[in-house]
């Protein structure tokens, strides 16, 4: 490979920022104390954890004691949804969520359904938006939690969280949002969004893997997922991941400093990529909302070709992306999100997701624009779905 590799899969994970690594190192080396210990080793670790907690809380308009550190987005989703289902058992047994949630939410709801909880899966429109009115209509006197994601990980659509939050409040129903894709990328204020619970993960914002948070609004009772020690005010037992939490704190600090410039810079590059691909390659469509979308997400379908072939061809050019094609999923099912927004199966097959990051340059985007037409053309020439002359 003579050209530099181009990583456009930041929604999967991001490179850990050097500053984050620097911040973590002391806690992997000398400062190895257990934050629960009373001696100075422990207290040093505890101080670092609490500094990170304060930093992160202020970033999202929360109080430090409302933040529970977890192992990541999946655990936070499981903790909040199962925890509410259990703690509010006597109040009801109905959950409302959407059909395009991350599997961490959908599979958790499905697990609870098998335990006798009833679940309403709301549809979305062709752009991937949940209609707040649908949420209102779905609420019953048995509803204990509404869980709607902030930004969709596949198609990038940003949901009307504040509007749904108002409805949830009117009805006195707790409201959770999975903000894994938006946290550190667009402004988040838990009061403005009117959420009671929120999930986030450090590795999506140049932090380390294996650490995330559950925001739990003051006064909200929740049953823990992990039982054991007294950590996190008995809301999550387990020795604190001190280096991870410190890294998370530093990653949030960096995101806070660069978020505004980065989101407009990345949006411009994203639009350049979308426009370029749509204009240079026929029979191509954009998936997700044209405007209400994550600054770093472009998801497109290329008719007549299959995503894995596209992905492998781009990888041969040193460009890393992801696809919603059935062929690359272990279940051999096409993406549930593309299905929910009504993308026909063959088009879902030929979908690619490009997700930009802080390290993405205009040259990177132009390189994608340069190689994509040839790649699609080559695969289309092999495709029996292309009638002679249908695609040039």
């Amino acid at each position, binding site marked *: 490979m003579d050209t530099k590799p181009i990583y456009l899969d930041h929604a999967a994970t991001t490179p850990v920022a050097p500053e984050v690594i620097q911040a973590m190192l002391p806690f992997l080396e000398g400062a190895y104390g257990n934050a629960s210990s009373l001696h100075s080793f422990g207290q040093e670790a505890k101080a670092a954890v609490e500094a990170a907690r304060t930093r992160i809380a202020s970033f999202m308009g929360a109080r430090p004691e409302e933040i529970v550190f977890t192992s990541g987005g999946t655990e936070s989703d499981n903790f909040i949804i199962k925890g509410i289902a259990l703690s509010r058992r006597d109040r009801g047994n109905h959950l409302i969520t959407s059909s395009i949630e991350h599997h961490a939410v959908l599979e958790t709801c499905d697990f609870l359904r098998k335990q006798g909880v009833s679940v309403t899966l709301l549809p979305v429109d062709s752009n991937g938006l949940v209609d707040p009115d649908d949420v209102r209509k779905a609420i019953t006197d048995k509803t204990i939690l509404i869980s709607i994601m902030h930004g969709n990980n596949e198609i990038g659509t940003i949901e009307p969280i504040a509007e749904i939050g108002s409805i949830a409040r009117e009805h006195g129903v707790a409201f959770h949002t999975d903000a894994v894709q938006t946290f550190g990328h667009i402004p988040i204020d838990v009061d403005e969004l009117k959420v009671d619970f929120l999930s986030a993960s450090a590795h999506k914002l140049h932090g380390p893997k294996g650490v995330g948070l559950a925001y739990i609004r003051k006064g909200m009772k929740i049953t823990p997922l992990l039982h054991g020690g007294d950590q996190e005010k008995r809301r999550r037992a387990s020795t604190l991941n001190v280096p991870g939490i410190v890294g998370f704190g530093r990653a949030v600090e960096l995101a806070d400093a660069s978020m505004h410039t980065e989101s407009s810079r990345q949006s411009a590059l994203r639009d350049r990529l979308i426009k370029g691909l749509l204009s240079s390659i026929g029979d191509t469509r954009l998936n997700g909302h044209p405007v209400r979308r994550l600054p770093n997400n472009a998801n497109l379908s290329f008719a007549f070709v*299959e995503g894995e*072939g596209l992905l492998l061809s781009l990888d041969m050019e040193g460009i890393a992306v992801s696809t919603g094609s059935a062929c690359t999923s272990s279940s051999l099912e096409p993406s549930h999100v593309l299905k929910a927004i009504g993308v026909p199966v*063959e088009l879902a097959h030929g979908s690619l997701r490009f997700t930009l990051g802080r390290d993405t340059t205009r040259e990177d985007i132009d390189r994608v624009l340069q190689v994509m037409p040839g790649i699609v053309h080559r695969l289309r020439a092999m495709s*029996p779905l292309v009638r002679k002359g249908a695609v040039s």
Partner: protein
Amino acid sequence: MIQNGPYNEKVMDHFRNPRNVGVLENPDGVGTAGNPVCGDIMEISIQVEDDVIKDVRFRTFGCGAAIATSSMVTELVKNKTIDEALAVSNRAVAKALGGLPPIKMHCSVLAEEALRSAIDDFRRRQGKP
């Protein structure tokens, strides 16, 4: 860039440079097969002379393994008699490619089925069962 992708070098070679891509002008038999597992499609056309497959072409809408197995099956049956071609199994195709990831074995079935369907079509045109 990725040295240890999902496929070995031989599979990647056939994906990169597939042999016998396209459609024959005047085929003696054309067959298609659809993959019920993931919904992909393969099409094979053959030209037969004196019971020997003189030429063969394929087109595939499918993953890297589907493209590579289509390409390999065309290589394996070219200049073979119809009976020899019928003896080519999906396992033989996968083996000739140096193996496929287990989850991709079903893609090689597509190659075998498309070939059989092309041979069936050839026989039908010949008026043979």
